[in-house]
Each structure stands twice: as C-alpha cells, then as structure tokens.
C-alpha cells in the first residue's frame, strides 16, 4: 500500500504569501511530489471550514491550508481569523475520528519556497501510510 498509494491533496494557498512562496519554489527549481493540486484564494481568512469538509467529502486524502505568517497578512489580520476558525474545524474533524494528518495548516511566506517544498514532502510522507481517505468520502 505505502509505496503504491498516491494521496490526492488539495492545498488552499493565499495569493500573497503561500502561492507566491510556491511560485518561488518553482522559480528555484525545487522538487516536491506532485500529489498536491493548489487552489489559490485571496487570503487564508477566506477559507471556510466548508471548503475543507467538501474537499474531504469529494475524496481528498488530505487538505492543506496555507497563509501568511501572523503579522504578515496582506490584509492585515485575515490569517488570524483563519487560525481561529480552522483550529475549530481541525478539532472537530479529529473529534469524529479523522486522522489529524488529513487536515493541516501552515504559514508560508513569499520568500519561503524551501519551506513550502518541505511541507509538501512531509505531508505526502505522512499521508501515504494512512491509505485512501474513505471516512468522509461520498459514495454515490
């Protein structure tokens, strides 16, 4: 399972820091696994818990939300709201028995291509042993 299974990960990246950071990773030709499909949002503060639930419901094996470091938010405080809102969502998902690794958050600045690369690598490494996420996935 571990070596064959390729987790499908959705990453919500804020435009100004994390998406820019992931662009930098590209510009610097860093390499990381291809499991993550990014969705660019304006600010991590705009990520509703529904987005995470929906991604898991649609069969994501893992979800990442990444924004600017506290204090660096392009919109001054959006990431602080994200931090609070998504902490609750994470607790809730773990409460119903979802593996904590399945939903994670990170702060990645526009200068942290290296960190972004690292996070994706770790994310994939952690998700592989878990196998496919079937708990919240819809079966039509």
């Amino acid at each position: 399972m571990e070596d064959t299974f390729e987790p499908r990960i959705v990453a919500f990246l804020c435009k100004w820091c994390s998406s820019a950071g992931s662009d930098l990773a590209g510009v610097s030709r860093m390499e990381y696994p291809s499991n993550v499909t990014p969705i660019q949002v304006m600010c991590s503060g705009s990520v509703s818990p529904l987005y995470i639930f929906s991604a898991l419901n649609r069969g994501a094996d893992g979800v990442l939300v990444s924004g600017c470091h506290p204090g660096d938010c392009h919109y001054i405080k959006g990431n602080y709201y994200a931090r609070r809102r998504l902490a609750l969502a994470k607790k809730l998902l773990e409460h119903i028995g979802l593996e904590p690794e399945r939903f994670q958050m990170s702060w990645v600045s526009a200068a942290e291509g290296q960190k972004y690369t690292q996070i994706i690598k770790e994310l994939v490494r952690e998700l592989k042993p878990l196998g496919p996420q079937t708990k919240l996935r819809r079966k039509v």
Partner: protein
Amino acid sequence: MVNIQSLKEEARKCLQEGKVKYIIGYEKGADGWKANPAFIKKPEDVEKLIWDPTCFHNLARFLVDEKRRKAKEKQPDTRPVGVVVKGCDSRAVVILLQEKFIERNDVYILGLSCEKAGVVDERKLARKLDGKKPVKIELGEKDNFLVFTDDGKAEIPVREILAERCLECKANFPVISDVLFGEKTKREVLNPFQSIEKMESLAQEDKWNFWKQTLAKCIRCYACRSVCPMCYCDECVSDTINFAVTADTTAEEKAQKIKWLEKSPVLSENIFYNLVRAIHLAGRCIDCGECERACPVNIPLRLLNKKMEKEALKLFGYEAGFDPSQPSLISCFKDEDPQDFIR
C-alpha cells in the same frame, strides 16, 4: 423555589396592560405529564401556565418564528413578546441579541431559575420506571424528583434522571431577564465537559467507529436544526435548493445554489451535515440540548456541540451566551491564539 402563581400574575398583568403581544410559556401536554410550549394570548389563559421538570423546550426558538411572522405583517404589532426562559434558554436569547436577530425591546423576558435541579431526561426516566407510565413529575424538597405513576409515587434523586445538559449546566438561572422567578442559586457543577471526556479519551479509530454507527442512523428529518434557536437562517447551506428567493432573484443566482452535500441520508452526507451544523454552532450553541432531545433516532448530538464549546473555552477562553455585546467567537481573535497545530 419558583412560585408559579407569581409567574401567572406577572403574565396576567402583562397581558391585561397590553404590555406584550402574547406570552410563550409551558402548559400540560396532551399525554398528561409532559409540558408543551404554550402561546398565551388572553389573560384568563395564564392559568394554563406550568413549571415543572418536564419543561424541556427552549422557547427562544419561537422568537425566530415571531420575527418571520412580524416581517410578513402589513402593520406589524411592535409590542414585545413575553417569553419564559430557563438559564440555558436565556443564553439563547443573548445570542439572538448578539447576532442582532432580535432587539432587546422585542422580548419581555420572564426568567425562571432551575435552582437545584433542571429538566429530566425522558430516556433515563423511562429506564427507571421501566414500563410504568408517569403522570406527573415535581421537584421534591431534598434534591429529588417526585414521580407520580399510574400506580403510586416514586422518589428519584435528581442526579439519577436529570438531563445530562443540566448536570453540566454553567448557569442554571437566566443571565438576562426582565423579571426573575426563583433564586439565583448557583448549582455546583463539578465538570461541565464530563460527557465528552470519555469520547475524547478514545483512540481515533474508536471515535470513528462510534460516529460511523451513530451518524449512519440519521434520517435527516432536520429536527435538530428545526428545534434550534440558533438555526434561524432562512436557507441552510446544507439545503440543496434555494428558497430564500424573492421576485428579483435572478435565474443566475438560483443556478448558483451550491450542492455542498446530497439529500441522500447516507453516512458521508449525514456526517457532512452534522459537521457543518457543529461548526456553525461553535461559539453559538448554549447547550440547551434540544437537538439531542428532539432527535428521533437518539443521536448524541451534544457530543458534537459540546466539543466545540470546550475547545472555544480551552483555546480562546470564549463562552457563548453571557454577553450580547461581545463579538462572536469567529469574528474576533487574540494575537496569542494557539497555533501549535500550524507548521
């Protein structure tokens, strides 16, 4: 001790003086022992009002209907509505005020203190009586309930049949009211989160197996959201069609209704619905426990809401329903909010 007579008197006065439109209280239900919501319009009807350990309902829920009704009236009667509230219900009123759903002068709050008790848990009671049919329940003198059944009377210690939510209640008397009946006797609550701690101690997989079985039972009758005063949205994000629609709603807007989850009562969609409800009630749920009581298939919904309540307190020092002027849980933050879970 709450004096029901003085409640009736106050109610009568309000109605006679035309100070309120009507009064939402409790009356004996058809089956003879449980309370039902009562809508008292005439002074003479105040005699119907009762107060006993079966007054489960969170009557703040009906303020939502009242607002909708008023919105439709041509010349709305702007007098307040009188509403009887327990401690938990009063906190629901606080949330409705905090979220500007109602204004303070829309309601005349008749507060009842639960004092040393609260409401009974029907299921616990049924187990106790096993088969016997209750006809009347009263709060006894010494921390017990007097349960009258078709054959005689039983004295049951409060703790044994009291509803979980009352055992964990943070304020067993109204935090907001225009008149208060009964004493503000703070009941000692050892651990307000007892019920979920067992749950929390489980391994991830056991948690999952528990919820898998439990939520598979959900028939999506939506009694939980229907009975909840906080679920006042005209259109719920989990509804698959939009009906908060007016003449000027464009076809495009209608087409844009998102189908986050399917109507099918299958596990994945049931979980989605319950996750959405739990997260939307975070920092808003005041643990009146009505959702859990109303659920026909016994889903322990408090275990979801209580978890959010606990985290709100633990992570952000936030308690719902005590201060209408405070910003709601997710519309504020502190610089020192925890972020150890963030890479």
